[in-house]
């Protein structure tokens, strides 16, 4: 089993202006996605919807500033953590989110399960 992170970048301002009823439809698509993952042997082990990037704070060299770390057109709006044995099928499941998520990045995590501190994201430091 590999744990994958599914990053959901998008147009946060457009989402903020979306009427509540339409948002509910969006959440329903995410529910379909979650159901499909469960039915097809993938396990969601974490995830969250993020507040707008204007609420972010960035810590750089000990200095705190308001806003996200990078000014990019698509800001991260949410993510899932999914355990899976089948990346291709996981990507297929992600197609369910078409229409509500224009861009989806799927990236494997580094396995630290053999170490004492399996929740440490940089046990071996960041890799490039």
């Amino acid at each position: 089993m590999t744990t994958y992170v599914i990053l959901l970048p998008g147009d946060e301002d457009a989402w903020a202006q979306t009427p509540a009823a339409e948002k509910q439809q969006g959440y329903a698509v995410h529910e379909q996605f979650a159901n499909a993952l469960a039915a097809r042997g993938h396990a969601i082990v974490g995830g969250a919807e993020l507040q707008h990037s204007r609420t972010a704070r960035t810590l750089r060299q000990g200095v705190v500033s308001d806003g996200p770390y990078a000014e990019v057109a698509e800001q991260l709006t949410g993510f899932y953590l999914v355990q899976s044995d089948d990346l291709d099928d996981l990507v297929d499941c992600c197609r369910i989110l078409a229409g509500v998520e224009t861009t989806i990045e799927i990236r494997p995590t580094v396995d630290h399960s053999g170490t004492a501190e399996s929740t440490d994201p940089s046990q071996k430091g960041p890799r490039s």
Partner: protein
Amino acid sequence: MKYLVLIAYRPGGWEEASDAQRAEWMDDHNRFHATVGSNIVAGEALAGPDAATTLRHKDGQPTLTDGPFAETAEMIGGFYVLDAPDLDTVVEWCRILPKGYSLEIRPCISMDMSA
């Protein structure tokens, strides 16, 4: 309240670092774990951006490409999800992490998708 801490780093930084520098960064992470303890809800180190797959939809048509969704000077190398009473607490905790990172701290909307 849950907060996402995105760990952004300059690609190549780890490879170029000395053993002593790496050991110092490891110590920083260990101190972070000792301090934050069970308030760490999740955390993962990500494989490099070249291992990423990006799925985009244009006019309903899916397109798969290799690589991350955005090419930026600093890349996301990992993250933590932390449970904290407020943002200031998270900022103080994050000061323990290696100084070479850029850390973006963002509140989560309280609708947990985990099982």
